[in-house]
Every structure is written in C-alpha cells, then in structure tokens.
C-alpha cells in the first residue's frame, strides 16, 4: 500500500494504489480512515515504548524489588488472545459479507475483552491483598501503570466496538460495517501486541 500520489510525465497523476490508473480525486472516507488509524498507532506505540524505556531505566535503582506476577495475568493474556482471534473471525466474515458470522465474532470479542479487563482487575485486587500496593515499590507502580494504561486503551476500543455493533444491528450498509470491523480489528491486534510486549517485559526483565 503506497501512501504517495505518483506523477508520471506522460500519463499525469497516478492513483496512489499503484495499478497505473490515473488519479480519480481524493480517496474515499474508508481509505482516509484506515490511514488515519495507522497514523494514530504512531503516538500510541511511542507512548508504550517510552513507558517500557522508563521501566528499563528505573529498575537499576537500588530500591527496586521485582513484583511476583499474579497468576491472573496469564489468564488475561489468554482472554485477550481469544478476543483478538474472535475479531479476526469477524473481520474475515465481514470481508466475505457474512453478516451473521460478524455478529457472532463481535459478540465473542466483546465478551472476551470485558473478561480480560475483569481478569486484570482481579490481578490488581490479588496484589492488593498480598500487600503489593501501588506506592509500595517502583516495580509495583510500573505494573499498575502499564496494565492501567493498556486497559484504558482497551476501554476506548470497546467504545468503537459498540459503535460497530450498533452499526451492524442498526442496518448500516455493508461497506461501512466492513470498514468499522476492519479498523477495530487492527486496533485490537495492536493492543494485543502491546500487551504481549508489556507482559514479556514484566515477566523477563524484572
């Protein structure tokens, strides 16, 4: 996928998709939204990368005591992977235009995502019970910060998810449903990758 409008001296301006067709005017809303989303992932990636680098720098100070990861985060990782898979199912169904399968996929996604958030909260309560409070140690602070920031972004994703669902139940045209599902699926997979990275850092680098 090329982002650049090309210019050919003999044929004029070419379509950015690169099939050699000539330029048909500004792209439709779908492609703009897709690129908008991909560009939006830049600041998000930057933010999580900076949190991870702050983690790497901070852990060298003497008061750092590694936090024992509660078993619930394994559960939530599985739930999030499942949620992402369900979204992928919905995305493929959307591409084929199978409305019924989209609905099922979306439902699965939503349930699993909410379960993920619940499982993260469970992990927080579990840590609280054992005395691993937010301010007790920087390792704890980073655990709460990382999982909290990630969870907030998933909640924002659920807002977009509910919009997709209401578009589907409200009988929006197939093209916009396909677009919404595709955009949300990319965001979901992105958040899954972020969580796996955060989890990997918390697990191996402590």
């Amino acid at each position, binding site marked *: 996928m090329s982002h650049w409008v090309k210019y050919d001296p003999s044929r004029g301006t070419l379509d950015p998709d690169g099939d050699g067709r000539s330029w048909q*005017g*500004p792209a439709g809303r779908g492609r*703009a939204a897709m690129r908008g989303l991909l560009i*939006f992932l830049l600041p998000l990636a930057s*933010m999580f990368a*900076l949190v991870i680098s702050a983690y790497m720098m901070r852990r060298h*100070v003497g*008061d750092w005591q590694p936090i024992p990861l509660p078993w619930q985060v394994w559960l939530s990782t599985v739930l999030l992977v499942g949620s992402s898979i369900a979204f992928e199912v919905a995305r493929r169904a959307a591409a084929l235009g199978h409305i019924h399968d989209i609905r099922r996929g979306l439902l699965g996604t939503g349930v699993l995502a909410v379960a993920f958030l619940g499982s993260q909260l469970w992990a927080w309560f579990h840590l609280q019970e054992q005395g691993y409070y937010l301010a007790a140690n920087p390792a704890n602070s980073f655990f709460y910060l990382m999982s909290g920031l990630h969870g907030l972004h998933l909640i924002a994703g659920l807002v977009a998810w509910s919009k997709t669902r209401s578009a589907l139940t409200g009988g929006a045209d197939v093209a916009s449903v396909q677009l919404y599902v595709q955009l949300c699926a990319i965001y979901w997979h992105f958040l899954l990758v972020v969580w796996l990275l955060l989890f990997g850092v918390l697990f191996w680098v402590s």
Partner: protein
Amino acid sequence: MVTVASADAHEHHEPQSFITKYVWSQDHKVIAIQYSLTAIAVGLVALVLSGLMRIQLGFPDSGLVDASSYYQFMTLHGMIMVIYLLTALFLGGFGNYLIPLMVGARDMVFPYLNMLSYWFYLVSVLVLMASFFVPDGPTGAGWTLYPPQAITGGTPGADWGILTMLLSLAIFIVAATMGSLNYVTTVLQARTKGMTLMRMPLTVWGIFVASIMALLAFPALFVAAVMMMLDATMGTSFFMPAIIAMGQQLPHEGGSPLLFQHLFWFFGHPEVYIVALPAFGLVSDLISTHARKNIFGYHMMVWAIVIIGGLSFFVWAHHMYVSGMNLSFGFFFAISTLVIAVPTAIKVYNWILTLWKGDIHLTVPMLYAIGFVVTFVVGGLTGLFLGNVIVDIPLADTYFVVAHFHMVMGVAPILVVFGGIHHWFPKVTGRMMNDTLGRLHFWITFLGTYVIFFPMHYLGVLGMPRRYFDYDYEFIPQSALDLNTFITIVALVVAAAQILFLYNMIWSAFRGRPSGGNPWGATSLEWQTPQTPPGHGNWGPAVPEVHRWAYDYNVPGASADFVPQTEPQRGPSQGHGHGPEQPGEKGHS
C-alpha cells in the same frame, strides 16, 4: 474533473445557523481562526507575565512581585509561550488554515476530530488559567517542571498548581494528537489532482513534518505528566528520590529525577523543531513570493526539513549536560547537536540565495521574513557555543542561555507569526492590514528585541545567573544592574508596541483596504480560490488541478511575473523546458 468534485462535495453540507457556523464549526478555516485567537489571547497573558518579571528585575525595590509570584510567572510565561501559543498557533492556526487550501482539499479529512481538537485545546487553556485561582496559585517549578522540587513543599504551587499544570498539559496533548493526526492524514490523503508531494509549498512540508514529530514526541510529555501526577497524589516514586523535608522523611524512595529529565527533553527538544519547522516553511514561501523568485534548491529545502525532523530526536540530552551524565553520552549528544547545524545552515543559505538578485519587495511580510533569517542566525550561532559540553557547563545557568533560546525560539518564530499573519490576512478577511502601522510595529519589535536580548549575552558571560528573583549579591556589578533596568524599560516599550499590532489586526479586519483574491501575486493554491475569504468547501463546484510547483515566479516568456499552480504547462516541450517547471521529476540543484 467536475465529477471528481461532485463525488466528494455531498459530504460538505454548508452549516446554516450562527452556532454551527462559527462556534461548533467543523470548517477548517473557522477552527483555524478559533485556534489563532485563543493562542494570541493566552499569549498576551504570557506577555504581561514577562513584563511583571522584567519590572522585578529592573526595579527590584518596586515590591510589585514577590519571590513566589516571580517563579510562578516565569513558569507560566515559558509554558504558555512554547506550548499554548507557538505550538498551537503554528499547527492549529496556520496548519489548519493553510493545509487544506494549499493542497487543494475541501477540508481536513476528519472535520469532526478537528473540531474536537480545538475544544480540547480550549479546555486545556482554561484549566491552565484556572491554576491562577487554586490555593497557592500556579506552579513555580520552572517550565521544565523538574522533580523533586516541582512537587515538594517550598516550591510555589507544589500541590494544586502543579496538578492543574500537568492536567492541562495532558489535555493539550490529546488536542495536539487529534490535530496532528488530521494534518498528516490530510496531506497524505486529500491532495488534489497533480499535487505531488514534491510540488507542495514548503509551508505544508514544514507543518507536515512538525505534525509527525508532534505525534512521536508529545507522548513522552504525556507519560512524564502521568507519572508525576502519580508521584504527587498516590505517593509513588517514579521520579521522587528519598527526601527529608522540614525534618520529615517524605514517603518517597529511590526515584530518579534524571528519568523525568530524559522523558521531558525527549519531548522538549523535538518541541523546539515542532515550532521551528513550520516557521521555516512559512518563511520560505514569504521570501519566495515577495522576492518574486523561485525558492533556491526546493529539493534541498524539503530534505533539510525531513533531516532536521529526524535528527532532533537524537539531541535531547544536550539540555542535560549539567545534570551529570556519562562522558561518551555527552560526546554523542554534542556531535549530534552540531550535526543538526548542517541542514539548518543549508536552509539559511538557500533563503539568502533566493533573495540574491531577486525582485525584492520590502513589504511588511518580507521585512518579517528577513528579520527571521537574521535573528535565527544570531540565535543559532550561540547554539553552537552551547552545544559543546565544555562551553555549556559554565554558561548553562546564566543569562547567555536566556538570550540564546529567546532569540532562536522566541523572537525568531514570533517574527514569522507576524509575517505570516500579515501575508495571509488578506485571504482570511479579504482586507489588507495597514502598511504604515505594520512597518512601525515591525521596526519597534525587531530592533527592540535585539536591544533586549543582545545585552543578555553579555550578562551571561559576566556570570549573571538565570532564574534569580533578585541580584542583590556582591559578585553582580552595578553595571549589570543598570543594564537590567535598561532592558526592562525597552521590554516594556516593546510589549506596549504590540498594541499596534492588535489594533491593526482588529481595525483592518473591518476597515482595511479590500485586497482582492491575490494581492501579492502568489502562485500557490490558496490564492486561487474563487471567493475571498474562501467559502465553505473552499473551491466552488470543482477542485483545482495542479500542473506545476508553487514557485514559478518570473518564468521567462510568461505574461505575468508569476504563474499559478493551476496554470497548465505549455505544449509538449515540458520534458526539456526549465528545470523549475518539473521539480517532481528531476533535481535542479
């Protein structure tokens, strides 16, 4: 071509009521004006604050400002000028107005997001202003907000002040992210037929690259703000080391103030170029238009912008030479800092070579543009001094640094702001700004800022420390104190002279001489709109088609001294014609 227009025209219903047209507006031109007026208003607050600080420094016996207020004013002055004025004005103001018009789009690709961006910005400004009214007033931690002092008792506003500041910054970052997302996507996605990237005016290039940088750099400030809020409210120790304050052990332990500095400057240095790159872009267009000559080395100019944008992410620690760091770190950052002077110098040479043998019209925008080039060189040269670790260490905490950054990122971009407003005012309002008032304002501001900031270099070399509320010390000679009084008087005069500009702007908006659609005889698309000010959807029934770059001034054989971008190339001879007509195809340097 008309079918192209009608295909996307149906998305742009013209709003009818006053509220939807001017308040909850999704039109990029209205949002640009909202952004600009808000930024100028909050900038005036910062200007008044600097006046109050200068009164304290010039007349320490006046008793107008006490030590706490001085630090609060200093903090707010810096923060407002850098972020809430310059960043918002260049990206939200000029970016919003010019990007769709210059690339031939009907609006931003996400108009609703654009509207949200402004309202988030307004809320961030209101939260910041609210900090004047919280208990103990705004934070006095300095605009860099370094912990531990920012959130430790004894610093003014260490409770509520710092929290409102951090909250306001977080909201601003959300606003800037929404805005930048729009600018980048619009440039990539909504250019009109024939507008290749290498035909875009340099203004668009500057704002485009600055927006990408904003997307990558602001998250660092966001993360830092969130962590510091947790340190202040929840007792975490991200940044707070073990401290005994007032004989009591604070609940923090082991935190790293240096971590904050890294995060802050990872945002803070790109921020300098988020302000400077749009200024570079605007100034290139001003110089080319008013010198009636194509910009020298367009390709070089574009790549210099891109390279500066990239390099600026690898120089942040030059703000931290005195914070203590590994020697080879310092070496690396000194080298990268000095390397950035190369693309910057390329730009300066190209501006001068554009002026060379040009048909220079010394209009008000041109005066400001030339004023910028001179000021930027002066400020940039002292940057070369400070980029070296060994020179920086004795100078870092003196007025030399104050002089340096005010010249390079205070005065220089503000001159571009004035020049840009004078240049594009006719397009925004359909009326010219008053020339005599403009010239008067230019000379007072330009010469005045030199009289203010030149002596500060000397004060810095003399060893006068910065960030001091009072200079009642043995080692400060009387001459330095006299110079401070002199600077204060000039600063107050220059500040008062800004009324000329405000008056000119307001008066001209209603009573100025009608300008017509293209008063400067400029080539780029925004001057070719069917209506001035451009109507909703900008282009009437059909979006324009672009056939050439934006710098065809004084083309041999052309009937006028400029050829608009919409003018088709003549005949099939284009392949071996003048270099400048085909900038997208081959280098012509």
